[in-house]
């Protein structure tokens, strides 16, 4: 029997951890969008300036901040949450590896898939996200 003591309300700690994560994640994502727009607007990444490589890699800085936010959130979470995240990450990793293998094998036939690295990234991230949703049910 479900009582008032079995409600699914989040605990104070849950809310504090979620706020701490959002405090770090959201500014990093906002910085990523700003840097990406700046790179696409002023970066001249299609030109022949030697600086274009630096411009192209500039969005990595906010991406590192996003990764830092995710790692810190993982370290703040408890052992069960870490186990669930590890399972989800394993699914994402497997999907990225599978996408790599598929694109690599297709490459043997001479088929060049445009933006292949982005497909690998997308497969890994999407699978990680879906798996995280499934394991946290």
């Amino acid at each position, binding site marked *: 029997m479900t*009582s*008032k*003591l*079995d*409600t*699914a*309300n*989040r*605990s*104070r*700690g*849950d809310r504090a*951890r979620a706020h701490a994560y959002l405090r770090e994640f959201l500014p990093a994502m906002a910085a990523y969008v700003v840097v990406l727009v700046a790179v696409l607007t002023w970066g001249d990444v299609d030109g022949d300036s030697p600086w274009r490589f630096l411009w192209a890699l500039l969005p990595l800085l906010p991406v590192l901040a996003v990764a830092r936010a995710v790692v810190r959130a993982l370290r703040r*979470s*408890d*052992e*069960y*949450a870490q*186990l669930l995240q590890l399972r989800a990450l394993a699914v994402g990793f497997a999907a990225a590896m599978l996408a790599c293998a598929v694109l690599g094998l297709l490459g043997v036939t001479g088929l060049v898939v445009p933006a292949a690295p982005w497909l690998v990234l997308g497969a890994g991230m999407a699978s990680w996200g879906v798996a995280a949703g499934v394991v*946290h049910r």
Partner: protein
Amino acid sequence: MRNSIRELRTARGWTQAALADLLDVSRQTVNALETGRYDPSLPLAFRLARLLGEPLEAIFDPDEQDEAATTR
């Protein structure tokens, strides 16, 4: 592993969220422990025992599968 965390918690009038805060874990973790979906690490089990004021054996009870694994 069977356990009596839910009974011991409700006997004290604590919600899952309250127990989660006392243990410094998420409410989802408390729910997973109570429903037997997750067996805690030793440090967490001892924290739980200390908090509930009960010995580990009074909280956790190995089920037949666990017993069979130890005799294999």
